[in-house]
């Protein structure tokens, strides 16, 4: 296996592209569940058996599916992790920080390994050390085991036995031993790999009691020179045609040849089971299921948990050869190991929990019936579907076997099936293209509305104009709906961004030895994919900041009578057309005087400026580049670039970030972002001969005032707006520097009050045009240096209007204000 660790190696998997896609998305899901649950495990300990089961199940599913597609390294690592989890589940291994750390590390590695499936290229990551560490946990815990192993080297190593047990432990029916001998081709370059494949293949059928070479040699990919493999298999379930199945599975592995495959004695397979009462139960596989074989197997495994699976249709062989079609009915004959009603409930529950499977029917059957079905199974032809159809028909034609419960179940299943969301995967690029088209449509419908209004009164056929207006109105409504739908299809719950934060907070908190209670709220809040992609980094910065600078050390907190466990709350909600994200800590808050002193010592401001600074302005200093209040630079939160970058990045998205703080109580950062980045509502205004667009989310209000209301405060224009002073800037002067004021006494001015974060300012414009939806277009590099313009908008008449960069303009107002303040 040495050669496998070469970087950049192309990987091929034993699955179709659809299966791989399914594997990837399910894998991500399982990893996500594991990530969250392992963090919960750390907090709650091993007392919550439901949680333990869930973790174990997720790990197990992951192992099974990675094995199925032939991702050996992934299967191996999940196997090690699963072994550890099994011990935890059985309370033979205590939850420790080391254990959690190792499990979390494993998840990171697994994510990389999962990415390999996407890229098809093998990463440089190695798993051996991690596997050893994980195994070490178990071995350390159970010191006697290695000795045993040493004493009896021929015996199956502990972990493999365990493995077999836990996979199929409840699923085993009687002892029925098969001996299998295989030969690896002489010219095989990777005998260890083939041996592992064979091992895994055989393992699917039951517990491997003994193998030669021993399992650990096979599993850990030690240099394997032996060309002959010998397995003793304790069959998991008695199925007819097992020999065939075993052979065909093994022969499918390249360079492996089955020498012999025979039963090592014990009774005939069907005997024990047939004498017991068997229950026939079925599950339907959803018609859209891309991997029906896997689902069928899952159904059988589920049934095996509550009893002994005597036979199944499709047979194990068919399942193995993927001769299962979506929409198939999986029928099983099971001998329950619990009371019947309990069995039915458990099985229904278990099967309905598996995606794309729906429980159908459970009927106690006569032994003869079982025999008949079993016999049928024996003759299974490649046309398995036919058999399935027959079975389906049969079960449908036997209403007398159905009980009232079944009828209920059936109707219930029908309901669940219709409620199951029907999903289609869409390439993100396609959605983007769709969004662009909607953008163009919005431009044209605005143009159409304009034409209609221009025609109005300029034609001698008003009926046509009316018709046009009506049509344009309908188009407006339709395109609005279309836009909403397209936007919605691009929306993601913010959970997709938030879900990685608990882990991040945990790791960072551990690094600085602080105890932090991390609360996440509003995970369901939806936002546009393009926004979601961009907000992760700013939020990480804010969280880091809170952990590193915000929350005090445990001693400090205890000393001032605070709860030694710090609290960080991350929440998201919708507010009008914005998404608002708060990052709040209950730390020591930010001292504005300290900020001033710091900025002063760093030469970022002059003492003169500092003396005039209000609290609010001083707090803004934190967003200056080159500013860091941490006494020492830590590797967690940056070197004074963090907050600066946070603000820049958020403003790039037309958003804002503000902070509120109270000394000793904590700090809250509030990030506001538009729901989408492509289309915004804007207020159009005129300056000179040109139209400009103002993003509506930064507009507070538009007013018309008399020129004489404008006061000059320290040589700077301002008005009083509801008790607050609103500094003004003349846009015409801002852009062209020209002064051409109407000085007549009764002159009126249009003012648009805008805000950026906590700052407000008024823009004096020539006239107001109105509100419009605009599609934001980038202006490109040529205008990089243009101050005050953030982009271009295509208007309804096809003209381009510059979009005003409100933050830049307000900064300009602030700095102008500051300059003019007399010393």
């Amino acid at each position: 296996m040495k050669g496998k660790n070469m970087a950049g190696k192309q990987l091929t998997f034993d699955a179709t592209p659809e299966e791989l896609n399914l594997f990837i998305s399910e894998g991500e899901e399982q990893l996500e569940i594991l990530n969250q649950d392992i963090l919960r495990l750390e907090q709650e300990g091993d007392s919550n058996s439901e949680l333990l089961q869930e973790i174990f199940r997720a790990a197990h599913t992951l192992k099974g599916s990675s094995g199925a597609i032939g991702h050996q390294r992934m299967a191996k690592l999940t196997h090690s992790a699963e072994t550890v989890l099994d011990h935890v589940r059985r309370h033979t291994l205590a939850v420790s920080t080391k254990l959690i750390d190792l499990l979390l590390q494993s998840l990171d590695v697994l994510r990389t390994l999962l990415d390999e499936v996407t890229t098809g290229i093998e990463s440089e990551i190695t798993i051996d050390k991690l596997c050893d560490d994980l195994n070490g946990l178990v071995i350390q815990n159970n010191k006697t085991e290695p000795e045993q192993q040493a004493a009896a080297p021929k015996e199956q190593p502990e972990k493999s036995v365990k493995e077999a047990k836990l996979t199929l432990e409840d699923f085993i029916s009687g002892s029925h031993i098969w001996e299998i001998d295989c030969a690896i081709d002489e010219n095989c370059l990777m005998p260890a790999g083939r041996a592992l494949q064979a091992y895994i293949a055989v393992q699917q059928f039951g517990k491997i009691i003994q193998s030669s070479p021993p399992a650990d040699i096979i599993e850990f990919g030690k240099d394997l020179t032996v060309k002959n493999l010998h397995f003793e298999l304790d069959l998991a379930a008695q199925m007819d045609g097992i020999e065939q199945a075993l052979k065909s599975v093994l022969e499918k592995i390249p360079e492996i040849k089955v020498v012999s495959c025979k039963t090592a004695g014990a009774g005939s397979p069907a005997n024990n089971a047939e004498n017991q009462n068997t229950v026939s139960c079925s599950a339907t596989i959803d018609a859209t299921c891309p991997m029906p074989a896997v689902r069928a197997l899952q159904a059988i495994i589920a049934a095996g948990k509550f009893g002994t699976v005597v036979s199944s249709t499709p047979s194990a062989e068919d399942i193995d050869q993927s001769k299962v079609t979506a929409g198939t009915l999986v029928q099983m004959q099971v001998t329950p190991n619990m009371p019947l009603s309990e069995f039915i409930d458990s099985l229904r529950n278990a099967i309905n929990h598996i995606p794309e499977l729906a429980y159908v029917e459970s009927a106690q059957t006569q032994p003869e019936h079982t025999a008949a079905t079993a016999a049928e199974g024996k003759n299974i032809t490649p046309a398995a579907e036919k058999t399935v159809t027959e079975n389906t028909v049969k079960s449908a034609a036997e209403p007398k076997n159905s009980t009232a419960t079944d009828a209920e179940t059936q109707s219930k299943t029908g309901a669940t099936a219709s409620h199951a969301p029907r999903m289609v995967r869409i390439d993100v690029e396609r959605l983007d293209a769709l969004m662009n088209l909607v953008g163009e449509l919005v431009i044209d419908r605005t143009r159409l509305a304009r034409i209609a209004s221009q025609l109005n009164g300029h034609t001698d056929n008003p009926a046509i104009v009316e018709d046009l207006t009506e049509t344009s109105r309908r188009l407006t409504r339709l395109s609005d709906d279309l836009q909403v739908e397209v936007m919605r299809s691009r929306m993601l719950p913010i959970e997709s961004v938030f879900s990685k934060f608990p882990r991040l907070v945990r790791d960072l908190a551990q690094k600085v030895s602080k105890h932090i209670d991390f609360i996440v709220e509003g995970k369901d809040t939806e936002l546009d994919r393009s926004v979601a992609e961009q907000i992760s980094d700013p939020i990480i910065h804010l969280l880091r900041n809170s952990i590193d600078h915000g929350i005090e050390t445990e001693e400090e907190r205890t000393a001032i009578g605070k709860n030694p466990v710090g609290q960080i709350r991350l929440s998201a909600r919708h507010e009008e057309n914005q998404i608002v994200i708060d990052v709040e800590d209950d730390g020591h808050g930010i001292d504005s005087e300290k900020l001033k002193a710091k900025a002063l010592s760093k030469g970022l401001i002059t003492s003169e400026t500092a003396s005039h600074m209000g609290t609010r302005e001083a707090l803004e200093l934190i967003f200056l580049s080159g500013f860091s209040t941490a006494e020492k630079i830590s590797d967690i939160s940056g070197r004074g670039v963090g907050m600066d970058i946070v603000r820049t990045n958020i403003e790039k998205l037309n958003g804002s970030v503000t902070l509120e703080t109270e000394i000793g109580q904590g700090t809250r950062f509030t990030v506001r972002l538009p729901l989408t980045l492509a289309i915004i509502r804007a207020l159009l205004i005129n300056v000179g001969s040109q139209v400009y667009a103002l993003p509506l989310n930064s507009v507070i209000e538009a007013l018309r005032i008399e020129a004489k209301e404008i006061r000059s405060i320290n040589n700077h224009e301002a008005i009083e707006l509801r008790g607050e002073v609103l500094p003004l800037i003349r846009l015409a002067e801002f852009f062209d520097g020209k002064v051409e004021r109407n000085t007549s006494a009764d002159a009126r001015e249009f003012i648009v009050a805008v805000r950026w974060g906590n700052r407000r300012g008024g823009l004096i414009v020539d006239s107001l045009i109105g509100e419009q939806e605009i599609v934001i277009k980038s202006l490109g590099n040529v205008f990089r240096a243009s101050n005050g313009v953030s982009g271009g908008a295509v208007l309804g008449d096809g003209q381009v209007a510059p979009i005003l960069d409100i933050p830049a303009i307000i900064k300009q107002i602030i700095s102008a204000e500051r300059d003019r303040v007399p010393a």
Partner: protein
Amino acid sequence: MSQTATQTSQQAQTGLDDEQVVVFDVANEFYAVNIARVHEIIRLQQITVIPGAPEFVEGVINLRGKVIPVLDLRKRFHLNVSEHTRSSRIVVVELSNQTIGLIVDGVSEVLRIPADQVDPPSPLVAGIDSRYLRGIAKLENRLIVLLDIDKVLSILEQQQIEASSLN
């Protein structure tokens, strides 16, 4: 003009390394851009001024939903600026990473220029910054300046970065 056309077609038959170019005039001089780089030629339309843009950048136009910057070549070459006329056109050219429009006084023709008639640029010719030139084609009755269209903007960007770092 008809003379030129005949002459060109004759050359087309003989030359192997011909280059096909779009010829346009700016302040009574002829300039040419390789035809492969010319996306389209459109009439002058209303240009939106972007405040704070470099002086030779006239503004932006909406080219079927795409917003592209438009440069006035007269200003770019520091030539006398005159009013745009009815024959003024915008030559839309593709640069490596973006599309830009160039305002010219008029587009005259598409020519085939044989490689052996192209001389390296000389600073003395045409009186414009030789950094934008790729060469000068000497046809019988006139000189055509071959523009290095990528440099027209890249030098611009360089200057801009310098300018913004000064601020």
